[in-house]
């Protein structure tokens, strides 16, 4: 499916416009107190348009047209707010639609009580049912492979076109409903009941149906409601105060003032920001089970990463040849390459490649007659038996030593010291022998993925401590740790160690994130504040984590952290902007309201707005159109760059705080000029 859908595609737009009207329903809008107040204001001004003297007074027809204009602007303000939310939801809905398509009309071969397989609709499958899937069929529901091995196309879920291998037992046994089996045959035990499948959850998530307000969003809503209440008090009490100084303010103007002051900008965009944030996570191919998890990601203090596969490429590669005894490097390289000619493991390939770099290329053809000896856990060596009976082996140093000693040959004196040397540097030594003679050592090294150092540096700037987990010994672990630039490491780690680390960090009040895929990672994933499970991992892991990475790339956590932060920053920035706007609106409206009774207040009309009607309408129009203008920002999020918290605060305050004070002065003045030109200013 296409996750890069454009922000404003035509279909989404037209649907969003329709939705904007549907969302006028006060029952829904009441959950957003700020916009609800605007809607109430709209209703009142509408009534005042019909009867300008509804609340007493003797207003002429000009009052009616003024009320009408205010009514229209208020309506537009509400619609803009609804539109923002609808656009954000629209993208999710489009994605949900395409997901739903994969779900419909699936049939399953379910094992009946009699033991025979019969065709049933996939929607009738329950937990612990057994189904059989044959190549070319869709997997009907989430489950675990209990028999067979096959390649599966998971592109419908992950967007990744390369097929993956799924088989019984081990960490690759989980399959997802809606994916397609490409080869072989699988017997699957279903692990979910109808409606609870991964696909169902995903549809719900992208649609925003199960969206709950995140803790920070909740807190912000409270503050916004509080500010709305304060301004309500300000406006309601203004009339009697004005009355004391012999002024009168008509109701439409009071409502206009109220709507200008309450934080409509953030009120209108708040839910859109939340939805768009989740959407950004999804577009990174990460499924967050809740918005809370994404927000928590922004707060992470400690990040626990597995070494293998996350920090390092996952395989040790040959990096050096160390000859021993009287042998030269050239001799060693040649024997080492021969020993690895038919070794298809990454280690073996890396020996051949390194040999090539050293100028030694040996064709496989010249050794076709040789017998290949595979590596076994028993012997811990591999190599070739040449046609002439000579054996060539490479393998663990002590195993090779034993082989040589069994044959009564001598072990070169410098072997042990060089072995030691490699081990202290954190590498893995492989000894190479031919016949009874040890030629030297291959230095196997863990290779840190390119760019990791920079990413960890970035994390450090964000204030996140990285901890590497590895089963390696301390020395090896320390070397990789310093090479990758992580802050800390646990060597010889067992799953319980991970758990203990998470607990101790959490006890200190820190938030911990980790990624994992194995079943034995599941408890730690559940314990962590942010647990990113790999989609390739086991069902248990996916169940335990609160996020699932469809690309199975553990370093994604870094992006998720950024998105979490971005989410908060966007909310904070638009809130600040919204409140800062009020300064200019006061300068527009207050002198206008009191112009008649306190002409001296005209000194505050620093924008020199044409008339008092124009001043109020300009402020109100500015207040409305700033909402759609900020939709793109709400969708994309405020740019996040790792830097010190204070630096970022000042930067964002400068842009959104100071900008929020200045922009409306310019905007209101421009609208006033426009209204003047159009002749509306003097109605």
């Amino acid at each position, binding site marked *: 499916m296409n996750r890069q859908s454009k922000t404003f595609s035509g279909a989404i737009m037209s649907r969003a416009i329709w939705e904007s009207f549907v969302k006028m329903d006060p029952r829904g809008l009441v959950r957003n107190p700020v916009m609800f107040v605007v809607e109430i204001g709209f209703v009142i001004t509408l009534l005042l348009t019909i009867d300008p003297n509804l609340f007493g007074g003797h207003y002429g027809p000009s009052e009616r047209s003024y009320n009408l204009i205010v009514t229209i602007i208020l309506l537009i303000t509400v619609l803009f707010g609804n539109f923002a939310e609808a656009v954000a939801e629209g993208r999710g809905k489009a994605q949900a639609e395409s997901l739903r398509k994969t779900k419909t009309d699936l049939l399953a071969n379910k094992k009946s009580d009699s033991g025979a397989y019969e065709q049933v609709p996939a929607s009738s499958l329950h937990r612990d049912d057994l189904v059989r899937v044959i190549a070319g069929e869709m997997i009907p529901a989430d489950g675990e492979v209990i028999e067979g091995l096959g390649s599966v196309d998971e592109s419908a879920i992950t967007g990744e076109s390369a097929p993956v291998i799924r088989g019984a037992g081990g960490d690759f046994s989980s399959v997802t409903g809606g994916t397609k089996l490409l080869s072989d045959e699988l017997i699957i035990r279903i692990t979910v009941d109808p409606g609870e499948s991964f696909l169902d959850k995903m549809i719900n998530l992208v649609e925003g149906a199960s969206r709950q307000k995140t803790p920070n969003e909740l807190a912000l809503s409270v503050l916004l409601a509080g500010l709305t209440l304060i301004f309500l008090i300000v406006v309601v009490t203004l009339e009697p105060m004005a009355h004391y100084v012999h002024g009168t303010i008509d109701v439409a103007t009071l409502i206009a003032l109220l709507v200008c002051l309450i934080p409509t900008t953030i009120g209108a965009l708040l839910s859109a920001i939340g939805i768009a944030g989740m959407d950004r996570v999804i577009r990174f191919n990460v499924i967050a089970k809740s918005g809370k998890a994404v927000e928590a990601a922004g707060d992470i203090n400690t990040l626990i990463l597995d070494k293998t596969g996350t920090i390092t490429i996952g395989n040790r590669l040959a990096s050096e040849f160390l000859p021993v005894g009287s042998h030269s490097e050239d001799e060693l390289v040649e024997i080492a390459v021969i020993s690895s000619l038919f070794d298809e493991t990454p280690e073996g390939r890396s020996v051949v490649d390194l040999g090539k770099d050293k100028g030694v290329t040996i064709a496989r053809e010249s050794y076709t007659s040789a017998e290949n000896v595979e590596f076994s856990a028993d012997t811990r060596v591999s190599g070739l038996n040449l046609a002439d009976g000579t054996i060539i082996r490479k393998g663990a140093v002590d195993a090779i030593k034993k082989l040589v000693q069994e044959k009564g040959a001598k072990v070169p004196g410098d072997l042990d010291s060089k072995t030691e040397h490699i081990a202290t540097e954190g590498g893995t030594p492989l000894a190479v022998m031919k016949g009874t003679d040890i030629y030297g050592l291959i230095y196997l090294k863990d290779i840190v993925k390119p760019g990791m150092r920079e990413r960890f540096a970035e994390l450090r700037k964000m204030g996140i401590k990285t901890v590497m987990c590895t089963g390696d010994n301390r020395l090896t672990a320390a070397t990789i740790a310093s090479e990758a630039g992580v802050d800390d490491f646990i060597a010889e780690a067992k799953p319980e160690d991970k758990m203990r680390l998470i607990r101790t960090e959490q006890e200190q009040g820190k938030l911990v994130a980790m990624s994992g895929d194995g079943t034995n990672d599941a408890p730690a994933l559940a314990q962590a504040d942010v647990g990113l499970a790999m989609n390739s991992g086991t069902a248990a892991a996916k169940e335990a984590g609160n996020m699932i990475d469809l690309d199975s790339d553990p370093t994604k956590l870094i992006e998720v952290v950024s998105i979490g932060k971005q989410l908060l920053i966007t909310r904070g920035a638009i809130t600040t902007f919204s409140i800062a706007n009020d300064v200019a609106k*006061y300068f527009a409206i207050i002198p206008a309201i009191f112009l008649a009774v306190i002409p001296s207040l005209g000194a505050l009309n620093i924008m020199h707005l044409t008339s008092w009607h124009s001043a109020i309408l300009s402020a109100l129009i500015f207040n409305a159109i700033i909402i759609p203008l900020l939709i793109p920002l709400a969708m994309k999020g405020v740019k996040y760059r790792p830097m010190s918290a204070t630096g970022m605060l000042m930067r964002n305050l400068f842009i959104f705080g100071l900008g929020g004070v200045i922009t409306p002065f310019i905007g209101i003045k421009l609208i006033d000029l426009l209204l003047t030109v159009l002749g509306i200013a003097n109605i």
Partner: protein
Amino acid sequence: MTIAGSIGILAVIALILIIGIPLGDYLYYLFRGEPSRMDKVFHPLEKWLFRAVGADPSVKMDWKAYLRALIMVNFAMMIFAYLVFRLQGVLPLNPSHIKGMPWDLAFNTAASFITNTNWQNYAGEQSMSYLGQMLGITYLQFTSAATGFVAAIAFVRGLIANRSESIGNFWVDFIRIHTRLLLPLAFVFSLILIGLGVPQTLLGPETVHTLQGVLQTISRGPVASLEAIKQLGTNGGGYYNANSAHPFENPSAISNVLEMLAMGIVSTALVWTFGRFIKNRKQAVVLYVFLTAILIIGAFIIYSNEAGGNPILQHVLGIHGSNMEGKEERFGPAMSSVFAAITTAFTTGAVNSMHDSYMPMGGFIPLLFMMFNLIFGGKGVGLLNILMFLIITVFLSGLMVGRTPEIFGKKIEAREIKLATIAMLAHPFIILVPAAIALVTKVGTSSILNPGLHGLTEVLYAYTSAAANNGSAFAGLNGNTVFYNVTLGLVMLIGRYVSLIAMFAIAGSLAKKAVIPPSAGTLRTDTFAFGGVFVAVFVIVGALTFFPALAIGPIGEQLQMWAHLLH
């Protein structure tokens, strides 16, 4: 404005800081409960007091228990004071045969003094017996200051607690603040004041034949003992109607300076104590820099307006020079201006000049300071307001740096924001709503003395003063009516206890949370950048809330004045 006057203003503010900081250290050790050399003196006394009150000093209280005890004892004392005011006519120590107060005035006065407001709808020399001054006023001036003080200390304890429920023992804190701070300071200060000319006697008024041979009745009484705690406890309720402008309350330039120091030092000290408690002196320094700067700016705005004089009088009568209407010669414009700034910044409410007669912008600053209610603020309550706005600031800025906001290692979540919003909301609500009611009702407007926009400011000032628990007044407004006695009394009580309860709830909620160690991603609150944001937030929130009212109050009046419009 003169250079000497300006230096005088700066010197007073500097002295407050110089004395406040070591006093803050003392308070820190006192409330940490660390053993000190003074224990030998105080322990036996305190032990006796604990027994007399029936409190067990070893009990640890959670926020609810602490708050319950605080509210309960405040209520008991308020009832007590009410009875004293009602019954003073039949009680002893009443040489001028002053009658008991009517119910509304007694309620207003009891509410006023229990809340540390010290708004006075009575003239002390005419409506209060010596016993009332001692057993009603002086007494509550101690305990209301102590109440605010222990509330702040309890809050700070909640802030630094790590997953704990206890925020200390109310009775221990409440008694110790009396024995180890307020009583000794007040005792020494009252003797100094007597030396400077403040009367302290139980003799009745002195009736003299003046130099011209007419009769003059000179009121006197136990003034110094009241005056001392009035200033030290940021109370502000004077013995006399003219308050600290009265030569018997504030006889000289020296006593004036000492009284300003007395108003300032304890609240200033508390900010330092807070810094010590959170183990971050720089936080206190940052707050000092910004709050002091605002205080100085405010003082100089007043000073420049007052020293500039009244342009109308210049224009119409040709009188040049400072505005001396409602000011005393021994203070002049400089010492009056800085007194006005300090009394409203520290929400004392004592006045040494009549704010009602200030230039519009001169009176605007005291009003604004009370609207902010946190330029150091009153005893304890000021610190609580500072912390309340810090929470709001931290929340907004926390969002802007992309982290769930933390204040001093404690996460700020919906519950804290809800409570802080209630505390923040209460202030404008109880100012604007009753002021609006007063301005459209006959009972409200008939008490107004000055016409035009200035009259609106009188009412606005009254409710702001009551809400901020300040007590200073645009005294032209006649507050001694049933309407004002009751509404102002209620505003004072709400202004005090709603935010206090909300802040206690925050303290309880914060105490339970774990302290998060700071990291590079933590937004530091002890930087000058953050201090600037803090100021911006409370200034903008304050300005947005009160701008319309101020625009048709002092700002409008000033603009009219410039336009040489006379009403």
